[in-house]
């Protein structure tokens, strides 16, 4: 299990190589990473991600533990960046390792849903006209419903 909240970029290939560390029980690894996309007006200059230091680690660990238990995972990885991110930059990644693909897929989705609306990060979009805080969407909240 590895959780990292960091300013710097990460290497997906390297992370996955380390992640798949030869445990012969693992038959399926799913990974997802999110990247900074342009806004609908195509005016994004960069993004600033604010976090609640301490609570981010705690909250993510909590959800990772829930996922490991629920889907009998052999390993799980969450990396989430904060600070200034440019268009196309990697924001975060999640990887899960299970015996079968269904558990790996589902647990990765579960972690994504919880990271989106339960881990204390706030995205700010900066454009040449100023900035705005990204609003949470109802869809993100209702996405949690299916895991209850």
């Amino acid at each position, binding site marked *: 299990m590895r959780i990292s909240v960091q300013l710097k970029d990460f290497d997906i290939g390297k992370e996955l190589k380390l992640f798949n560390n030869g445990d012969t029980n693992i038959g399926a690894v799913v990974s997802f990473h999110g990247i900074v996309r342009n806004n609908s007006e195509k005016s994004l200059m960069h993004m600033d*991600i*604010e976090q609640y230091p301490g609570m981010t680690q*705690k909250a993510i660990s909590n959800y990772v533990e829930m996922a490991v238990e629920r889907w009998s995972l052999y390993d799980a990885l969450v990396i989430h960046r904060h600070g200034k991110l440019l268009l196309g930059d990697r*924001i975060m990644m999640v990887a899960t390792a299970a015996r079968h693909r269904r558990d790996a897929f589902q647990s990765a989705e579960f972690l994504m849903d919880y990271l989106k609306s*339960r881990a204390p990060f706030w995205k700010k979009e900066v454009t040449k006209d100023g900035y705005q805080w990204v609003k949470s969407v109802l869809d993100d909240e209702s996405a949690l419903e299916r895991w209850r």
Partner: protein
Amino acid sequence: MIKVLYFAWVRERIGVPYEIVETQSGTVMELVEELKQKEPRYEIAFSDLSAIKVAINQELCEFDTKLNGAIEIAFFPPMTGG
């Protein structure tokens, strides 16, 4: 004494990232009401509580949660990570 933290636009409206508050409030809601009495910036920041989430000692809670000697409390908008 309790450390009160603010994040994202709540922080911007209050004007500080955190402050130490001396309070006798029993619940989160009582503390919010107490802060709103202090200055207009609190009144503005806390005008729509449906847009604000709260955590005590770094765990999400509700506005009717008791403070019970909490060390820190944080107010922030719904999270937008991922």
